[in-house]
Each structure stands twice: as structure tokens, then as C-alpha cells.
């Protein structure tokens, strides 16, 4: 049934407001990208140049005098490792929490949920001490391990695993498939979209978890791209051209990943919100 669409003044006004807001939200990104190709004299002028009339790659060249590509590599490596480990551990745990009846299931799940409601940043001090104790401070593992430990992934995969039909698992058992085979051949194909959602979600969160990275990583060669930009900003706070080039280098890869896997990502966010 087609609904009749009436054009009311409210609709017109809200469409206009929405478009203005969209510009407002896009503008910082536009300003990063254009700022990164402006010359120092243009940037330091009190009258802004809305569009870069004489673009230059100078800022990027100066950015590469710093180990910016290494920082980028660190960010990618860290995010990929966190993503893989989270997907493996969370899909296994989520599946049994959803589909197996075993002693302590309810208690365990309750603990996961409670931990998730607590503010993550509060545990950073003891986490740092723990990492120093384990001799992992200033290595990428100090960021990866807590990221993998965060229970959101388990929760999300449990939500997805609820959809696995019980009869299918029964049938597999009757056919004599072992637990491992049941998991790899029946469960995994069904929860694949969920794993996709979790993968992209973990990747972006790990990439952007500035506070954790800040606490755990120190030496210049271990920094991530976010930390590197923050460091550049602290060292030369008014060299906005250089900083914008850094910001562009940090933002473009992650935005590309987001746009490519947007569907999965949206699904991850919405599934994570459904009450368990």
C-alpha cells in the first residue's frame, strides 16, 4: 500500500535543518583534507581560504620526516591482531553461552554483562601496572590483550548465536559430528555475518582507542598514528598544515574501512543494543 506523502512546512524546515547539520558534521573532515594541502602562509592568515587555491604536498613531505608510515603500520597491525583474536575467542564463547546448557552459565553471563556496564577507562591504572609486571608495557600487546578481553564481543556473538536452530545442532550430534566439527562446519557459517560485524566493530574501536594507547605506548617507534598526531601536536602546536596532514593520514584509512563495511558495522551496533 502506498502511503500518501504530504509536504508540510514542518517537513520542509526539517529537511533544510538536516542539510545544514550535515554540512556542519562534514566540515571538520573537509577542513582536515583541505588544510593538509595548504601552504603555511595561507594557514597562518587570519582570513581563511575556503578552498585551497595553491595546493602543496609540502605538509605531507614534512610529515614523512617523522615515522608516520611506521605509526600507520602499528595502528593497522594492532587493530588486525585485536580483531582476529576477538573474533576467534568471542565466537567460541558466544556460541556456547547461547546454545549449551552447562553449570555456571547464568552466573558467567551475568559477570560478562556487569563488567560491560562498568567504565572501561577506570581500570587503566591497574592495567598499566599489570602490563609493566608482565613486561609488556610499551609493546602493542599491552593494547591488544585488554581489547580482546573486553566482554562486548562475547555478548554480541551470544546475541547472534541465539539464531542457530537447535535441531541443526541435534542433527549434527546424531550424525556423530564432534564438538569441534559441529562448531566449524555448522555454527560458523551461520554466525558469519555476526563475525563480520564484530570484526569491523573491533577494528574501528581498537584503532580509535586513544586513551589506552596513550597509557601503554611510549617510545617513538611504537606509537600508533593517533598517538603520533597527538605527539606532533604537542611538539609543534601551531604548525596546523603538518598536523592536518597527519590527521588526514590517520582518518582516511579508517573511513575507507568504515565505508566499505558499513552494513556489517550498523548491524553490529544494533545487535549489541538488543537486550540479552
Amino acid at each position, binding site marked *: 500500500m502506498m502511503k500518501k506523502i504530504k509536504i508540510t512546512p514542518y517537513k520542509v524546515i*526539517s529537511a533544510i535543518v538536516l542539510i545544514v547539520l550535515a554540512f556542519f558534521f562534514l566540515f571538520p*573532515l573537509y577542513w582536515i583534507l583541505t588544510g593538509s594541502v595548504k601552504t603555511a602562509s595561507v594557514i597562518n592568515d587570519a582570513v581563511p581560504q575556503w578552498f585551497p587555491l595553491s595546493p602543496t604536498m609540502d605538509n605531507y613531505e614534512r610529515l614523512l620526516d617523522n615515522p608516520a608510515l611506521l605509526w600507520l603500520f602499528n595502528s593497522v597491525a594492532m587493530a588486525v591482531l585485536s580483531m582476529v583474536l576477538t573474533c576467534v575467542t568471542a565466537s567460541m564463547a558466544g556460541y556456547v553461552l547461547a546454545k549449551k546448557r552447562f*553449570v555456571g552459565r547464568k552466573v558467567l553471563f551475568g559477570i560478562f554483562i556487569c563488567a560491560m556496564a562498568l567504565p572501561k577507562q577506570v*581500570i587503566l591504572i*591497574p592495567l598499566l601496572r599489570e602490563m609493566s609486571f608482565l613486561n609488556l608495557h610499551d609493546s602493542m600487546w599491552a593494547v591488544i*590483550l585488554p581489547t580482546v578481553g573486553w566482554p562486548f564481543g562475547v555478548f554480541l556473538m551470544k546475541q547472534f548465536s541465539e539464531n542457530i536452530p537447535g535441531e541443526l545442532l541435534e542433527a549434527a550430534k546424531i550424525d556423530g559430528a564432534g564438538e569441534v566439527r559441529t562448531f566449524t562446519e555448522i555454527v560458523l557459517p551461520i554466525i558469519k555475518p555476526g563475525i563480520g560485524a564484530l570484526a569491523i566493530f573491533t577494528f574501528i574501536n581498537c584503532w580509535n582507542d586513544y586513551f589506552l594507547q596513550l597509557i601503554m605506548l611510549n617510545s617513538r617507534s611504537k606509537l600508533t598514528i593517533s598517538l603520533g598526531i*597527538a605527539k606532533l601536536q604537542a611538539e609543534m602546536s601551531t604548525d596546523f598544515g603538518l598536523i592536518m596532514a597527519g*590527521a588526514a593520514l590517520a582518518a582516511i584509512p579508517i573511513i575507507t574501512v568504515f*565505508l566499505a563495511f558499513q552494513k556489517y558495522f550498523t548491524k553490529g551496533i544494533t545487535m549489541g543494543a538488543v537486550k540479552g
Partner: protein
Amino acid sequence: MNKRIKPAGMQKVLIRRETISAYLFLLPALIFFAGFVIVPMVMCLVTSFFNYSMTEFAFVGFSNYVEMFQDKIFIRALMNTVLIVVVAVPVVTVFSLWVSSVIYKMNGAVCSFFRCIFYLPVVTGTVAVTVVWKWMFNKYTGLFNYVLGSAGIIDSDVSWLGDERTAIWCIILILLTTSVGQPIVLYVSALGNVDDSLIEAAQVDGATSRQVFWKIKWPQIMPTTLYILVITTINSFQCYALIQLLTSGGPNHSTETIMYYIYYQAFRLYRYGYGNAMGVILAIIIAVFSAIQFKVAGRKDE
């Protein structure tokens, strides 16, 4: 064990087998979770009762907690944090509900286009977003002074981040742009799930669109609203990166937040015990706020 297997015994054996295999599946996740979430949480709580620094480790009972409430900067930080939460949470919720209710009926591509745009500041990353805002707020080369000056709204250049009266509002503005992305995604999906037949029935009965919204849609998206309130509260309470990158808590502690002060005490002054005690208090405050929201939102539900 050489038990005769009766049906009940069979059941027991089965359950035990299920339990063992379940825990084997859970083991990898549990190792990470216990090692890097539970252990630090317990350590946080325990060491909050200690005078714990690089050199010292002595039990001091509640004295960290007592000191906290006599610490003027902590009180200031608490006030600022509450201000951020009290402003940001309602604005984020109302803003994202409004945006979602406008875009969710649009055709798929347009809707996801807008959803993407509002999500962009989240994806771009705190650091990249913050440095560009810092430039826009700059007194000499920033856009704000130029635009507002040309429009005649301000007479002389304002040092947005250097002035006690404006700094925290700049922080809140940036926080808002980085906070609405997720709520919009959630609301769009929740509004899309509202039962259409109910809406049509109400329209047939002559309900206005305002009535349809408050009587039908609003109760159905209540769980989503609740979830959004809670996550936005948690995020706003933990506001840290913006402060560290923009103002370092200044000028004159006017943008000090609890999270930033914890960081300062623990990683600049190495007072881990005191930092952890503040962390515990922060966690309790967040829990109380969430509980209140559950109560209030839960009552409206009925």
C-alpha cells in the same frame, strides 16, 4: 568410577560432558577476560585503600576517599564532569531522536547517507577530529573568530579554549558531534522496527502524527532510549581525550574532568592509590546515574 548408568545418571554424565566441552570453548575468552578485565578491576578496588606510589605501598583504609572530598580540584572536576553529562546526555538523546525520526522514512540510500555523515566524526577518530577543532578555535588563525567577527557577532577575537567561560562549552560542542553517531544508528533501526499495523490503525482512527509518535512509537522505542541514555552517560563521564588534547584541564581547572584528574594524579604524580580511589567513585557515580535512568525510564514505560 564404575557406576551403573541409570537414566538419571546418564543425564548427569551428559551434563558433565556438556559442561566440560562448554568450558573448553569458553577458555580462550575467559583467559583474556579474567586476566585483563577482572584482575585489574579487583586491583583497582583493593589498591584504592592503599597509599600506593612508585616507592610506597601501605594500607591506609579510607583515607584516599576522605582526601578526595577535601580536594578542591577533585570537587571542581566532579562539578565539570556533571555539567558535561547533564548538558550532553539530553542534547545527544533529543538531537539523535529528531534526526532519526526525520531520516528513517527516507529511501534506503538517502537514509544511510545521512546516517554515515553523522557517524563520520566517530570513525574519523578523536585525535583527528580534535586537532581540526583546535585549529578552528584558534584565536588568530581559526575559523570561529573569522566567521563570527565578519558576521558582527563578536567585536574582538576570542581565545575560545583559553577563556574560563568558553572553554568547557567548546569541549561540550565537540563531544556532542562525536556522540550522536551511535544513537542515530540505534534510533533509525528502532523506529524502523515499530509495528506498522499499529500506526495505520491509529491513523485510520484519526490520530495526529504527534499522537502517533507519543502514544505508539515512543513507548516502543523506550528500550533503545534507555540504552542510549546509559551509553551516553558512561561516555560523557569518561570524557578524557578531548580535555587532554585541547586544554589539559585548564584554564584554571575550568575544564578539569574526573577522568583527566585521575590520569594526572596517577601518571604525572604517580599516586596510583589515590587515582584508583577516584576511579572507584567514578564507577559508583556512573552506576547510580544508570540506575536512576532505569527507574525513571522504566516508569514512563507503563
